[in-house]
């Protein structure tokens, strides 16, 4: 088994290198023939035009035919394989080494796409499961409609709408200092009520009750927010943290273990209680926190969850561990969220922000200085819109796959067997169906990661974020070959790598799949 795996890996690596080399050749020749890198100079009326052209030709070896120039490029790129060697991916038209601009572009792209990518998977899978469980209900049909609608929206249009309503509209609302208009509160409450009654379902009486309760709750929260000027100076407060923590404990236990497992419930409650205690005791530490502090606290949070899981013991230790870790992490997130909210007012009243926090361009406010929390809010306000716009589009496909995947699994014999054994529905779904449903999602995730590092060309351009997509776009327009090839290398390697990882993931997820050399 061990040797077959090694053989498999080696063979895959050898094939991958061949694929990369061949693809880079095709890409190089195609890009070289996409236009004229001297175009801007040809229209010049400068007295030393010939010399300028000669300088660029010499700098980029433009006198060598593209097919041969590819070998020159390959020679430089091959040095990247030598450890600690001089990695030479060439220069851009403006004399910048590609090896120095690539990491910055990658970082910007990862910062942009990672949150939307993770959120899209989580939301997509959750919504997909919910729709599959309520197949052909009003909820299912509405989600299907909405996800196809979002999927077919062009991203530049989404971007423009988001900028108009969420950035400019919300900022105007904040600056005016007015409350939320009453008709708006009523409308939002009614919509929220509709969504909840569809989600929870039941007979007419139960639906009406759900609608009434949820609409009333939404309306009163909005009214409270409106009269207290909450958007100017938000916060969850003790009550908010408490309510959210209880909700987290309840939901986590309900999904991950069921209330029959008293020990898991106990673990969840302890984890929640520790989060509430942390909320009171850690505020002083938060005020002087740096990124390192928060990273440490995150590690401590997970450790605390593990310790609680072990401490409560019980028959199903793995399940208890899961519950307490999930509750620890999520409720710590609530405490963190509350702390960010406490800094919000300082952020929006800073002179650089000037009361208009939601940004439409860039990844941060130039020259904005502040502590960890303010910097975090600054990133949030800048990445909010691009993240939503990416999320809305990629979320749709995950919903579809998750729904179809779960429905297919639920129709299988072993699920019927599990139900026949008298297992509770929660166990059937979470334990038996969920894992098998993930297999097609794994393929999708693997291919998406490759596309992900390629950046989102349109989104990056519209939101002026200088990631991989922007780099590729700008370079292609100037027929600047070396950065195009740098871009190509990164996404080609990621694509090959993640396809390989997906193959290994099948083996891990599906016992029927075996890797063979």
């Amino acid at each position, binding site marked *: 088994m061990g040797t077959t795996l090694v053989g498999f890996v080696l063979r895959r690596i050898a094939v991958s290198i061949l694929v990369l080399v061949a693809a880079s050749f095709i890409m190089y020749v195609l890009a070289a023939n996409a236009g004229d890198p*001297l175009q801007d100079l*040809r*229209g010049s*009326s*400068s*007295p*030393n035009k*010939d*010399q*300028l*052209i*000669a*300088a*660029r*030709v*010499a700098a980029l070896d433009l006198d060598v035919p593209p097919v041969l120039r590819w070998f020159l490029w390959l020679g430089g790129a091959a040095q990247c394989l030598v450890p600690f060697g001089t990695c030479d991916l060439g220069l851009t*038209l*403006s*004399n*910048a*080494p590609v090896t*120095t*601009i690539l990491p*910055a*572009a990658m970082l910007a792209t990862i910062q942009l796409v990672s949150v939307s990518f993770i959120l899209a998977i989580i939301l997509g899978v959750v919504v997909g499961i919910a729709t599959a469980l309520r197949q052909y209900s009003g909820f299912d049909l509405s989600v299907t409609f909405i996800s196809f609608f979002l999927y077919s929206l062009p991203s530049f249009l989404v971007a423009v709408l988001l*900028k108009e309503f969420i*950035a*400019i509209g919300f900022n105007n609302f904040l600056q005016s200092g007015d409350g939320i208009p009453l008709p708006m509160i009523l409308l939002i409450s009614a919509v929220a009520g509709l969504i909840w009654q569809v989600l929870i379902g039941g007979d007419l009486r139960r639906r009406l009750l759900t609608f009434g309760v949820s609409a009333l709750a939404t309306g009163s929260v909005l009214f409270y927010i409106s009269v207290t000027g909450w958007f100017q100076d938000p916060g969850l407060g003790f009550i908010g943290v408490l309510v959210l923590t209880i909700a987290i404990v309840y939901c986590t236990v309900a999904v991950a273990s069921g209330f029959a497992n008293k020990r898991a419930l106990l673990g969840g409650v302890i984890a929640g209680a520790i989060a509430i205690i942390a909320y009171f005791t850690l505020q002083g530490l938060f005020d002087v*926190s*740096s990124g390192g*502090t928060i990273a*440490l606290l995150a590690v*401590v949070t997970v*450790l605390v969850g593990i*310790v609680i899981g072990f*401490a409560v013991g019980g028959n199903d230790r793995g399940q208890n561990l899961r519950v307490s870790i999930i509750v620890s992490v999520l409720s710590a997130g609530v405490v963190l969220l509350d702390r960010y909210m406490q800094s919000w007012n*300082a952020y929006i009243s*800073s*002179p*650089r*922000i000037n009361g*208009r926090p939601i*940004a*439409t*361009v*860039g*990844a941060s406010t*130039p*020259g*904005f*200085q*502040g*502590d960890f929390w*303010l910097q975090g809010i600054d990133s949030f306000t800048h990445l909010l819109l691009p993240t939503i716009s990416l999320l809305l589009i990629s979320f749709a496909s995950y919903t579809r796959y998750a729904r179809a995947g779960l429905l297919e699994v639920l129709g299988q014999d072993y699920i019927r067997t599990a139900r026949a054994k008298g297992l509770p529905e929660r166990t059937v779904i979470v334990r038996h169906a969920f894992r098998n449903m993930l297999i097609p999602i794994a393929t999708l995730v693997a291919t998406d990661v490759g596309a992900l590092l390629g950046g989102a060309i349109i989104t990056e*351009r*519209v939101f*002026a974020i*200088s990631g991989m997509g*922007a*780099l590729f776009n700008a370079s292609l327009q100037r027929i600047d070959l070396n950065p195009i090839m740098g871009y190509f290398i990164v996404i080609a390697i990621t694509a090959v790598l993640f396809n390989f990882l997906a193959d290994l993931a099948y083996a891990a997820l599906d016992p029927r799949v075996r890797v063979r050399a």
Partner: protein
Amino acid sequence: MAITGQRFRRVATLAAIAGASAMVLAACTTSGEEAGGSGDTISIATTNAFTSFNGDTPQSNLDTNGMVGYLTGVSGGLGLGGFLRLDSDFSILKDESFGTYERVSEDPLTVKYTLKDGLKWSDGEPITADDMLFSWAQQSGYYDDATIDPETGEAVSGTQYFSLAGSTTGLDTTSFPEIGDDNLSLTITYDAPFVDWELVNMIGKPAHVIAEQAGVSLEDFTALLNELPAGDPAAPVEPNPTLKAAADFWNTGYDVTSFPEDESLLVSSGPFVVSAFTPESDITLVKNPEYTGDLSPEYDTLIIRFIGDSNAQVTALQNGEVNAIYPQPSADTLEALKAANAITYEGDQVAYDHLDLKQQSGVFADPVVREAFLKTVPRQQILESIVTPVNPSAKVLNSQIFVPANAEYEDAVAASGYDEFAEPDIEGAKALLAGATPTVRILYNTNNPNRVDSFNAIRQSAESAGFVIVDAGSPDWGTLLDGGEYDASIFGWISPGAGSAGLPQIFRTGGGGNYNDYSNPEVDALVDASQVSLDADELSQIKIDIDALTRQDAYGLPLFQLPGLFADNGSIKGLEYFGGQTGIVWNAQDWTIGG
């Protein structure tokens, strides 16, 4: 539950982890920081990113580099930290708070530059004639002994120290300058009169920084410049290692992909100095603490953000993230700006599109056919479809040499009569053709929608007069310009707005930009005379005469100037349109906050 020892160990482990974490946490915290930046800030958006602190090299000659150079010193011969800059009508504005220059003799042409006493670079070092000497050495190519192959433009032998985006034309005829007045003045003598002598800005990068980068003291560097003989292409010698190091640094050392660790790259002579730079995102300029001149701004910080998408610039302006924008002009952008209640500033750029006819070969060797073809060009219609939507006050360009912002424009139009071609004269063209149906191949850039529109308008009109038009457009139009497979071409020139050193390129027989083989001995003589003319009125007359001769020879037609567009959201005052290459920042020193 029963194994209490194990439980105890767990609790102990937990306590140990907690204790250790507390210690690490204590080491990993920060004291609180003040929120936000300080002082009055103006943010503007430009389309292209910043790549170099020296915009005068071939690879860095980009508009945003030029803007930063202009604000911090001198770039492309103009700047707030030098002797001169251009006004919105392209006339020269002298900055006497920096220094003065005067023509002390006309024959030979001798110009004396005198710095104001007490000026300092932003790092506190004095600005002296050493800096002017270095600037002269860099701009004149005095020490170069390279022989350039006229075909490829590459050096066949010898050394070319500094690679310039501009050219050494003019200063290459100067002899070694004289330095005087306590090392504050520098006098240069031209061997031949030079028409654009007033556009020579005798200051550039700080000599002390260049010397340090070359590994020598400023004194030694100045001494070296004094000692080194002029380069002689006929007898090339080994390059001087120190000057080579200095030149190499000047050529590429200012190119950056992140905020430079070496702060000497930032040293500025202008009212602004760069304080922060995020690649591909933004650059921040603050007031130069050592600046004592007249061009100091009232605000503290200027942030230039690079936003490639024009619509993103508009929403950023609307959302108050930037105070002013300098987008790619288009009708959509203008409309979006109007909808956002922005204040717009439209005008003409110095770049213009033109139609040129091949003079020597093919169908246009016959001047009558040229004349007939020009009569069919619907210039007003082309202007209205391409430029008017962006700049409603735009007019057809009626000169090959001047733009309407120039004082000579009216006289030139009166002399040349290019304004007769505003509307097509199909009947006149038919009469000239007398029934002939010549075939005309038109070359243009098929990737440029403006050129495609121009081509289609011209084709339609010319065909109605009997011409047979062949679409010779290509995305590779640039490489095809120099060839012969076309009869007429539509493309654009970018002129600096001021100066006359570019004339021989375009109009002289065999000039580097003379793609349509224009050759008229009278024009050649006038062009040669223009390059040595030192009298402004005489020069204007020469250029007007050249313009008129191109009309008589049916050289081609100027079509329109590209429109330019700035906008602000009312939060700053003082913006004014300028069509030159520094764009929106040309009067950044005059802006004030408040609306």
